[in-house]
């Protein structure tokens, strides 16, 4: 029974990992940018949520209505002000600039909030659970988070393939100069993509802050989980990313069930295994 429980909890955890990954996958798809500071943005969103909940005294789930637009705005400004200048044939500038951003965010948070672990409380929903036959319990909150993750992925999928914005994303992704000839403003489209990415990051960060304790140093770890989910699922496939997140979550929980020290290691090994067997991921879409 413990094993089945571990797998179910792993699947639910996988939803959160898919949220970590979706924003990463989105901006890579649109502008081939890998944001090394992605994990630190997740932690930044968690701290932002913490400040909003403690200042206004509202539930973290309500705080999302402030954190999401704030992070999206930050994303747009950052893309237009800094990151657009780094894009080009060379992968080094975006990588190093986002690496610098990662150091800045980590130490900025350390300065403001100190290194103490923090946690947000979502109230009674945190302990509520649904009893299933056979001594299994599913927490309401993890289930809600999983369903939100599925909804976010579905929403992104819709934006990408059914909306005018998605058409613009795909156009600049395919051929930047032709897209500009057709009247698209590349800089603006990239700004919107980063805004959307950080909006998803905001949801992921607030969920992370409700689920576990967090401190300024945990960002890089979250980046790695997101990255692994993207690669396991296959580049450019959002539903694949969700499955990648689930595989990662389940592997971690199975590892932890065997030995608590193996939790993270098991996830990394699952990733390396997929890389060895199917280097392009399980469901690749783009090269």
């Amino acid at each position: 029974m413990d094993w089945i429980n571990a797998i179910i909890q792993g699947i639910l955890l996988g939803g959160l990992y898919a949220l970590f990954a979706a924003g990463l996958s989105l901006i890579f798809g649109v502008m081939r940018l890998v944001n090394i500071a992605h994990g630190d943005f997740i932690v930044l969103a968690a701290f932002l949520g913490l400040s909003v909940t403690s200042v206004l005294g509202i539930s973290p789930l309500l705080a999302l209505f402030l954190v999401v637009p704030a992070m999206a705005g930050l994303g747009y400004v950052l893309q237009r002000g800094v990151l657009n200048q780094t894009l080009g044939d060379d992968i080094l500038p975006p990588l190093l600039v986002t690496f610098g951003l990662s150091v800045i965010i980590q130490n900025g948070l350390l300065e403001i909030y100190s290194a103490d672990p923090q946690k947000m409380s979502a109230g009674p929903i945190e302990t509520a659970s649904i009893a299933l036959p056979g001594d299994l319990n599913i927490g309401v909150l993890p289930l809600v988070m999983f369903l939100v993750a599925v909804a976010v992925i579905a929403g992104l999928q819709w934006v990408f393939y059914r909306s005018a914005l998605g058409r613009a994303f795909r156009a600049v992704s395919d051929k930047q100069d032709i897209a500009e000839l057709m009247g698209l403003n590349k800089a603006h489209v990239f700004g919107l993509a980063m805004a959307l990415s950080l909006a998803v990051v905001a949801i992921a960060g607030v969920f992370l802050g409700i689920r576990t304790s967090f401190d300024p140093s945990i960002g890089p770890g979250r980046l790695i989980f997101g990255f692994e989910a993207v690669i396991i699922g296959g580049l450019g496939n959002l539903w694949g990313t969700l499955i990648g997140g689930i595989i990662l979550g389940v592997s971690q929980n199975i590892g932890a069930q065997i030995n608590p020290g193996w939790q993270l290691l098991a996830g990394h090994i699952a990733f390396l295994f997929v890389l060895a067997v199917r280097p392009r991921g399980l469901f690749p879409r783009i090269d």
Partner: protein
Amino acid sequence: MTTTTYSISRSSTVTRTAAVVGILIVAGLIAAPWWAGRADMRLLSEMFLYLSLACLWNLLAGYAGLVSVGQQAFVGFGGYMLFALAIFAGVSPIVAIPLAGLLGALVAVPVALLIFRLRGAYFAIGTWVIAEVFRLSFAQVSALGGGSGTSLPVAIVRGMASNRSMREATTYWLALGMAVLVLVVIYLLLRSRNGLALTAIRDSEVASESFGIDIWRHKFIVYIIAAGLTAMTGALIFLQKLRISPDAAFNVNDWTAFVIFIVVIGGIGTLEGPIIGVIVFFLLRETLSDLGTTYLLILGVVAIVVMLKAPKGLWGTLKERTGLELFPLSRRVVKNKSEK
């Protein structure tokens, strides 16, 4: 009658002068135990080891196009191998350093086979995953102290040299030797056929492949060499610290972020860049380190500004304006005038 002939030359007056000055500086540094204080020597050793890491990262990223953010995997691995060899096999630390390098190069082979499947920025994060796997794995080894780490036994430390000042001088010379070794290896590598291929790959992968250069093999060789030398440097770093733990050994900030900043500030893709970068980095650190986290904030901002405004770094910008080069690497046409 005056005829003008042309010849291709690598060296120039500047490079010859630089070579002489360089040899004099190294000679002065070798003599440091007789003129420098204990604290100065520690600082210099640290600079040499950072120089070595920076040169190796520069070789990977600046010449082979392999942007790694996971070199701490090999720093930590080298450190742990030194401790393991010294504690379990009774190997003298001096012998254990090259052995750690060899083991680092060996372990890099399967690592490279796996992560070379990832391209560009995804390769970068892949190297980071490898470093995490190393960190978590060494945290599981209870014989080496598990997650809390272990110290180098006093008997082993005493066995290195008869007294404290001799021991300090030895670790200092080892650090200096490491930096010189790395500079010489990279210099010779860049002057060889391999170096020509690497320069071609750096300038255009497609064009160099069409000339029959096996890109994968050249990158692989560079990765293995860099891993081995990084592991040796790691062994030296932890021989100086005398204590190792997974979090210190596989620290991404200490062994990769700072190293990247050094190379970026100094000038990526040049042999001189890391030298300038290390000096600037340590000047900043020694003047600002009292500020704590603010210092790291400033460092991050400096790195971003340099990347945006002068992506070639301090040395690269200077080289572009003046054509100055201290190491004779590029070829230039020299005009010879002769009377007949």
